[in-house]
């Protein structure tokens, strides 16, 4: 294949008929402070793991809301659970608890689908 010096970005179209958005409701129930997130990115900018990998809590949040669980599972495994993000969140979101709960929900969801 030829290389012209640029690439094609694949579309990010969400198919609402084939996507399962129920996990978001469960997370909102289990980690209530998650509802207060305004997506400011303070968590991502202070993240220690992001210094050494391309990990981004902001991206995790977006993938979870878009029900892209396969991609999210890999992303979440990069988190060291240090909790610095929780300290800087201006909205008091329990980000560490949010990531733990996301991991649990995705694991459960995977087991249910198997």
């Amino acid at each position, binding site marked *: 294949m030829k*290389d012209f010096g640029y690439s*094609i970005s694949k579309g990010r179209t969400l198919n609402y008929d084939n996507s399962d958005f129920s996990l978001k409701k469960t997370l909102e129930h289990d980690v209530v402070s998650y509802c207060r997130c305004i997506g400011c990115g303070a968590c991502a900018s202070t993240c220690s793991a992001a210094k050494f990998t391309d990990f981004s809590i902001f991206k995790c949040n977006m993938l979870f809301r878009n029900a892209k669980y396969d991609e999210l599972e890999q992303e979440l495994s990069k988190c060291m659970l240090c909790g610095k993000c929780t300290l800087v969140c201006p909205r008091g979101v329990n980000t560490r608890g949010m990531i733990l709960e996301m991991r649990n929900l995705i694991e459960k969801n995977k087991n249910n689908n198997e």
Partner: protein
Amino acid sequence: MELKKRFWNEYQKEIADDHYFYARSCIRQSFNPGAEAMFLNIMKDNLHKDIIDEANQHTCTGIGYHTDIVPFYTTATIMARLFSLMTEAGYKNYVPSCVTSFGLYVEVLETWKHDPETLEKTREYLYKACKREFELPENIAHSSDIIYKFRNELKKQMKYQLINKHTGQPLRGVEHVGCHYAKVFPAFGEGGAEFPYVLAGLIESWGGEVIDYPERRHCCGFGFRNYLVLTNRSYSVSNTYKKLESMEPYQPDFILTNCPGCNMFLDRWQYTIAETQHKTYDAEGKGIPVLSHEELAALLLGYDPWKIGLQMHQVQCESLMDKIGIAYNPDEKYADINGNQLTPPDKPDFLKI
């Protein structure tokens, strides 16, 4: 001039009947010069209209303006010079070939209308620069508006229709109206920004069927600065990729455009996508032919495809001509005006010619 009808009048447009001043397009006359020649032929020989192709015309600066290189007053003054050529020639109806130009002419005219001080400043700048004066056009219509207005008159003269000669079914066409045609100033487009009918009207009148698909109103991907900088071209080709992926399931026979930029990018990016992704959007691996309104009109009127310049496109149009039943001589495809054979272009690795 045909006046607006009572109902849906916000979606109609007044288009002059005759006596046009034609403004050429930088992109179209560089890449598909036959299209503009055909428009002039159709206007003069088929419709018997008075249209002038002024020899001293120049760019409108649209590409520079939309890449933030040329400031507004420079653009307005250069456009004023074009209007001064029109005034000097004794014409009042302005017909740009390019959709980018059309959108920008309307932007400048509307600015002058709502802020008359800018008009006076432009007059002053033009006079200081080249001692010229100008009148505002009475009517401004894109060349696709003109073809749309006379679509039924042209149909009576057409040798072919958009019918598949093998199946007898209407050919299925995708229409792509350039963003600057009506998305910027909806009142200046036939059908407005919501229901632009200028190209769909042509396909339907000439026997074809218009495909409605999810990304029908999405940008072609040109986007000026998204293309001009190499590292940004990913944005440009990704938009075209999205459109082509969206139209693929409907199996279009051709794409019809009115903007030279859209025409070029929907055509050329099919080559790039084929070479980088090994993906084409028709059954034979040749791609979907992309025609402009003038080229389609000329083709159906029976003009020689090679005089129209269809060989200048990246995706070749023989498959479409075979479906319509248009006779053509393959030996003349790469012949010059004296009949001498020119060296044919290199073949792509993946896209079939």
